[in-house]
């Protein structure tokens, strides 16, 4: 169950940071597909992970940016994990910016994270069946019960799978991504090349031991997962053979150039700078600023980063040139490339964003250089923390000051955050 994975992330965080459990004032978790038994998964996981039962916890949801929302709610930076079951250590982050519990003075120490268990999503009975079952509860006599049962027909047993489609438009995200890629004239080859890049870079980072944010997870009854297990650098020829997955038969988005859905959980320790220093921690990074944006869920479903990037830069008083490290959520190769083209278009900026000029496209040599969701996988609710912590780790490793994290999410929403390396 999802809380098991979340629990592992939280325990990993406790182990890595040695933070005393009773210091934690609050826990916020992001998740997308809720397990009905643990709808406040934050609380269940925290209790199971041995946090104090005096530490309140709540769960937030905002599609693929749920754990971003968890971080900004607690206001801190996070620690993320991703890939298959992985949890991550926490990063202490003082957070001088913005809102949230720490900034509001409500709390000093917050744990934020996210979890998604894609391998066991709740599947419901049909509405007819649910109705019959609920009525059955109220039936008093055996006769009433039998008469209700006798009304059950074979079609009552057809299950309802949680839809991966947008509620407002009934369009699946992959389909929207294919249309987005077409709208920006992104070719199949470009998408395959980008996906291959993501896998190659992730493999390289993994081999070099850069993905230190992973916490091993013992799968009950199976082996321990110690690393991201979705990284599969292939060849353009191999990838070129795949048939389109959504717009058939002529689309460009395939299984190989889309992010894959995996299980995963993440957790991150966020503190005010004073508290961190007082407790003797050396923070990894500041969470400087963040924005949320939203736009048309039909035609601009995945353009969140394009809208969020110039906004967060402006808010932080920075320009694209000040950014040393970009960590964007790779939902689809086509989505990333469309966003890069949109960010590089004056026409788009003027006609759709109400801006005078384009913000510019991030240089690829600073962009997702340790892989991304395409190669590491995308456990919806957990991905946001991974982006932030990777940005922090890359800043430290590559020696930059500012990192920019951006992601799109279902509902046509988006998010961006500025991460600043804590002075070494």
């Amino acid at each position, binding site marked *: 169950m999802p809380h098991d994975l979340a629990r592992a992330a939280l325990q990993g965080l406790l182990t890595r940071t040695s933070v005393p459990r009773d210091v934690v004032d609050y826990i916020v978790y992001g998740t997308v597909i809720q397990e009905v038994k643990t709808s406040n998964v934050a609380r269940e996981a925290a209790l199971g992970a041995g946090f104090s039962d005096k530490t309140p916890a709540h769960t937030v949801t905002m599609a693929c940016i749920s754990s971003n929302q968890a971080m900004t709610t607690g206001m801190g930076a996070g620690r993320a994990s991703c890939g298959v079951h992985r949890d991550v250590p926490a990063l202490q982050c003082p957070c001088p910016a913005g809102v949230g519990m720490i900034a509001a003075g409500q709390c000093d120490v917050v744990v934020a994270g996210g979890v998604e268990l894609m391998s066991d999503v709740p599947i419901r009975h049909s509405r007819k069946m649910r109705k019959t079952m609920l009525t059955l509860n109220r039936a008093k006599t055996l006769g009433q019960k039998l008469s209700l049962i006798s009304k059950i027909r074979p079609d009552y047993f057809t299950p309802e799978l949680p839809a991966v489609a947008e509620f407002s438009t009934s369009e699946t995200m992959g389909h929207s991504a294919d249309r987005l890629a077409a709208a920006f*004239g992104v070719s199949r080859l470009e998408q395959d090349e980008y996906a291959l890049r993501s896998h190659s870079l992730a493999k390289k980072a993994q081999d070099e031991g850069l993905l230190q944010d992973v916490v091993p997870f013992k799968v009950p009854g199976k082996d321990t997962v110690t690393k991201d297990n979705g990284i599969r650098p292939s060849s353009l020829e191999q990838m070129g053979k795949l048939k389109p997955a959504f717009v058939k038969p002529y689309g460009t988005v395939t299984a190989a150039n889309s992010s894959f859905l995996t299980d995963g959980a993440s957790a991150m320790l966020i503190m005010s700078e004073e508290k961190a220093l007082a407790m003797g921690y050396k923070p990894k990074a500041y969470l400087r600023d963040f924005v949320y944006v939203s736009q048309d869920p039909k035609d601009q479903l995945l353009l969140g980063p394009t809208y969020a990037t110039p906004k967060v830069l402006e808010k932080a008083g920075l320009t694209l040139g000040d950014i040393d490290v970009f960590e964007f959520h790779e939902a689809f190769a086509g989505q990333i490339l469309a966003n890069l*083209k949109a960010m590089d278009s004056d026409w788009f900026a003027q006609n759709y964003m109400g801006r005078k000029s384009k913000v510019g496209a991030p240089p690829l040599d600073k962009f997702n250089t340790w892989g991304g969701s395409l190669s590491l996988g995308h456990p919806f609710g957990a991905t946001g923390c991974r982006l932030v912590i990777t940005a922090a780790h890359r800043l430290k490793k590559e020696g930059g000051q500012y990192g920019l994290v951006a992601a799109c999410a279902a509902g046509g929403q988006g998010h961006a955050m500025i991460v600043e390396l804590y002075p070494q």
Partner: protein
Amino acid sequence: QMGNRNVENSCNTCDFSSLGYACRNISTSSALQNRTHVSCDIKGDVAVVRFNTPNSKVNTLSKQLSAEFTDVMNEIWANEAVRSAVLISSKPGSFIAGADLNMLEACKTAQEVTQLSQDGQKMLEKIENSPKPVVAAISGSCLGGGLEVAIACHYRVATKDRKTVLGTPEVLLGLLPGAGGTQRLPKMVGLPAAFDMMLTGRNIRADRAKKMGLVDQLVEPLGPGLKTPEARTIEYLEEVAINFARGLANKTVSAKRSRGLMQRLTDYAMALPFVRQQVYKTVESKVQKQTKGLYPAPLKIIEVTPLHHLICFFSFFGQLAVTKESKALMGLYHGQVHCKKNKFGNPQKEVKTLAVLGAGLMGAGIAQVSVDKGIKTILKDTAQKGLDRGQQQVYKGLNSKVKKKSLTSFERDSILSNLMGQLDYKGFEKADMVIEAVFEDINVKHKVLKEVEAVIPAHCVFASNTSALPISQIAAASKRPEKVIGMHYFSPVDKMQLLEIITTDKTSQDTAASAVAVGLKQGKVVIVVKDGPGFYTTRCLGPMLSEVVRVLQEGIDPKKVDAISTAFGFPVGAATLIDEVGVDVATHVAEDLGKAFGQRFGGGSIDLFKLMVQKGFLGRKAGKGFYVYQEGVKNRSVNSGMDEILQKFRVPANPDVCSDEDIQMRLVTRFVNEAAMCLQEGILSNPLEGDIGAVFGLGFPPCLGGPFRFADSYGARQLVDKLRKYEAVYGSQFTPCQLLLDHANSPSKKFHQ
């Protein structure tokens, strides 16, 4: 990847070294340097042919376009570098919207039309048999001749948006698909579906067309990218179509459609002669029943579809095009186009917030057709119960579209967010227009007018949805009569296309402009008439209904009256019509108009209506009128309670004027005479709007084209003769008006030239 742009040539420079049969046309292509309707690009080995009728929103198959198209195709066939072709429009909203009607109307004889049809078919046959595959890339309307072009191609790719519709609307103009569609369509979609398309003329949306096998691939519309959504979508459609064209030429794509089990079974059954015959028989009897033999086109369509000799089918097309039914239907088409324009120009202020007073059938209907066009609508009633009913009506109307999949549940919800149901005048200070649909009583109207004027802003228009009360009387209570206007909707509002707008002497131009703009936005066909008792539509209907009562009094039973009137072409029988309108409403109107017009509205006894009201026989809404209405019962029976009433008012019939034909003519001549009088008095500004109002608002037989077209085709002289004959028996209600007399006295005078 579209191939290298540098190798793209224009057709103008294509290679003519390969001398095929196309060379015969080389002499005609000397004019190709200045083609205006069709252009051609070569992209690698694919020719892209673009239709673009200049200075027009839509492409039409005109002589010019057809000639240029033939030229371009001949060049493509002659060009060895080209292996396949794509046909596409430069206009995102229209592939080809149909044949050029002016071209058809300019033809004097059936032979001329037959020739046109044959020329078209010859060209399409060449496309069908083209050794180089031709792909139609369809975005926007693909109707009539446009569909014929598309189905002659080897493959069809269509944009899946609301603007993209395919269909054969010829039957609505009294024609049949004239360039081989009757032969190709059944092969493509099967006989039953082909009949359905050709006999109803319905528009088929792209996704449905894909399911039917009418198109092979769909392209989803794109959002904004580096160009506008429209521009990029049609470019993308072209890219996809080019890929399929190339695939067809390389044989990596097959044009063969995999047909579902049901389709294969249907095909198999259809191949059996007796099943075929049965289908024909069923369809024919259905059409006979519905058209009463008044419309020649549907029967001809059935006749030509069994792959008869093409020659016979061409001549049928020619024959149909010159029938008076086709002329009438084309006249209505032109009238509709005319009534979709705002002759008052754009209003100073667009109506963004509308308030509707009264949540009854009409009020809720008006609200429904407004919210779904994005107008914020306040629906106000005086009682919670009435308001609930009205809101439920709007919801139900929209939800039925969800059930038919023409709307998503999400779209329904967001449309409903435009509706505000309330019992008070909150928010009226923001209203740009108020339409009242309250009880038809001048005192009630005056009361709400005064209440409303106390809360609305200065620019707000006050419109009354009354069916008979003169607008100037209502406006008499207004502080600002220039802002008062009549907007007469027809029930059910979401189904009836007509809106009759009534201006008084004091109504300002801008108020009229605003009302017409709202009507057009609501999707209505709008006629604008002058104020007067009954305006135009109610006034024409009055004398006819009075005559219906007279006929009933003479002992003809309601079923017979219905049969006689539908046989003449009225979609709803005359007795049923009274039930539908409501006997109480009819009484009300008859009394009012009787007072205003006296004997001319006489004939039937109004006391018969009054007694019906007394007995509660109010028509359909009460479950009883001339007929008994029961939920779920289709074959309604005559209300036996009426026997006594009819007996009471029984008058002797004069056998000289009581044949079926005479009864029909008694009803129709009174209608036409009153319509002519409206034109004579200036209530109507032209005969065209009179025809549109009668057909779309009152169900005047469409095959006759409206009262004025009917007067022309039947002959004013003959009409006057009939009127005189009945006048001699019944009196002055049949006295022909001066305008009709004028027309009768000079045969060259026509309402429609």
